[in-house]
């Protein structure tokens, strides 16, 4: 950072969807902004599943639908439950898409280019080692090796792996047994031209999102995913990390997490979809499983605001996940709050808590609270093991008959019995699942 001025109004750490939005909107409001990124270029350290909801992003990034490097608009949702040799799939097609797929590194580069157009100073290849605080504990800048840069306020957009907040003593050291975090592992497969359209029944520019539950995670809470891009398909799994450690301890998980992804890629039901493909990338990233439980005690402190995944602002609903849009939206709110704090007289915690209130009044927080029940579900192992088998058993009882078909009630009862569950408690728990969802 030696060659750049060392005093800014706002320093944003992390050029992801949250950081880029905070920088862009702060610069738009006339602040002098430095955006620092540890990777080479923006986006090079990012990995997500593959789908982004556009609604909130229209407010954050005007023109996104026309200008951003969008691959496909999702017009079909699939949800599969996988058993031993059985697959149950629910498919839903619609004509008014609300989400798209894109390579996150490309999309982020577009966002950062917008920020630079507004005058943001973007510096990559800078690993921030710590927040700099004054004698009273106020955050006054960032340190990277021997270099220090100062600002009236620092926006922490470091992502789910919160080294800076840990070092500053704001959040506890990351512990999979206590924190609601999951590991996402993903392969990107390049397909022959036209194969995605032909094999998945999609037209040019149409995309598909596919979530997979059941045996793919060996009973660990989580699931598999498939997303379509222009000429590639992403295949991956997400596993709750605390439960993964438990599964290793109990001897239930005997293979590597990469083998879980490989078993989806090679699954007889799926592998025909990417016949003759090449794996072009393999990666992994931490993700937030239950946003409210990952939130720091406050989202603003003296000289500091926290946005995006670092703030726990990710919504995992089980049947879909929203992270990028919430992250960007929180970055925009942070910039608005910084402008308000400036008008109120300065970047102290009291003024900056405007941001916390704005988040709490926004759709982000309301959605996180409304769907809080999903947090309970991610801890309910049975949902990922015996319940999946019971559903497949019901379908088997109904369909796989040569002469005599049971009534639906008989099929349900028999499957629940063979799954070792009792009918009434199971109905109670299913009602709870339905209520929580």
């Amino acid at each position: 950072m030696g060659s750049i001025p060392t005093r800014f109004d706002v320093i944003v750490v992390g050029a992801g969807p949250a950081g880029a939005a905070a920088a862009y909107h702060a610069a738009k409001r006339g602040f002098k902004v430095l955006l620092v990124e540890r990777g080479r270029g923006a986006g090079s350290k990012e990995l997500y599943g593959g789908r982004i909801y556009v609604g909130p992003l229209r407010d954050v990034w005007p023109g996104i639908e026309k200008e951003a490097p969008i691959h496909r608009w999702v017009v079909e949702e699939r949800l599969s439950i996988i058993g031993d040799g059985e697959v149950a799939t629910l498919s839903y097609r619609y004509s008014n898409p609300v989400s798209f797929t894109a390579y996150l590194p490309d999309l982020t580069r577009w966002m950062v280019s917008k920020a630079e157009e507004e005058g943001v100073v973007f510096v990559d290849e800078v690993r921030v080692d710590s927040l700099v605080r004054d004698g009273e504990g106020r955050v006054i800048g960032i340190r990277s090796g021997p270099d220090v840069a100062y600002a009236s306020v620092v926006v922490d957009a470091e992502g789910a792996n919160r080294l800076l907040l840990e070092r500053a003593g704001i959040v506890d050291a990351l512990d999979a047994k206590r924190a609601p975090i999951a590991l996402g592992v993903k392969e990107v497969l390049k397909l022959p031209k036209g194969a995605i359209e032909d094999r998945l029944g999609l037209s040019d520019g149409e995309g598909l999102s596919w979530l997979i539950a059941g045996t793919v995670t060996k009973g660990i809470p989580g699931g598999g995913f498939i997303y379509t891009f222009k000429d590639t398909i992403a295949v991956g799994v997400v596993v709750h990390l605390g439960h993964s450690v438990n599964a290793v301890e109990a001897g239930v998980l005997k293979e590597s997490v990469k083998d879980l992804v490989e078993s989806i890629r090679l699954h007889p039901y799926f592998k025909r979809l990417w016949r003759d493909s090449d794996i072009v990338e393999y990666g992994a990233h931490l993700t937030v499983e239950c946003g409210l439980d990952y939130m720091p005690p406050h989202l603003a402190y003296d000289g500091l605001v926290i946005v995006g995944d670092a703030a726990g602002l990710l919504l995992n609903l089980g049947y879909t996940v929203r992270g990028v849009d919430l992250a960007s939206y929180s970055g925009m709110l942070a910039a608005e709050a910084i402008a308000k704090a400036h008008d109120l007289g300065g970047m102290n915690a009291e003024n900056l808590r405007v941001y916390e209130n704005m988040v709490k009044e926004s759709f982000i927080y309301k959605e996180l609270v409304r769907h809080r029940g999903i947090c309970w579900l991610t801890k309910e192992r049975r949902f990922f093991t015996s319940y999946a088998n019971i559903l497949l058993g019901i379908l088997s009882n109904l369909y796989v008959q040569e002469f005599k078909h049971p009534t639906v009630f008989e099929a349900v009862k028999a499957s629940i019995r063979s799954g070792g569950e009792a009918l009434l408690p199971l109905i109670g728990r299913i009602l709870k699942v339905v209520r929580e969802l």
Partner: protein
Amino acid sequence: MSISDKSERALSIDELLQRNVYDVDDEPHIIVDTEKCLKCRVKPCTLLCPAGCYTLSPDGEILFSYEGCVECGTCRSICPMDAITWNYPRSGRGIYYRFT
């Protein structure tokens, strides 16, 4: 780098990591106190590190290599022995994602 591999077999972690672009740092960004690993019964890192950076030697000792690390942070969150000093690679080094 894309290696043509249309076979239907499961690939090893090394074969998967070969698809990635890295600028490997000269010095490791993660330090593992393998003395502590000797007392670790479970060794969850050997299965849960998605890049297979933690392997077992024939003597049952943990061997750590940082070169294929994808910088996710899993190991530091699951280590039961607090044996890992974790950091990101120095400026610009490490994994370079393109299609994620």
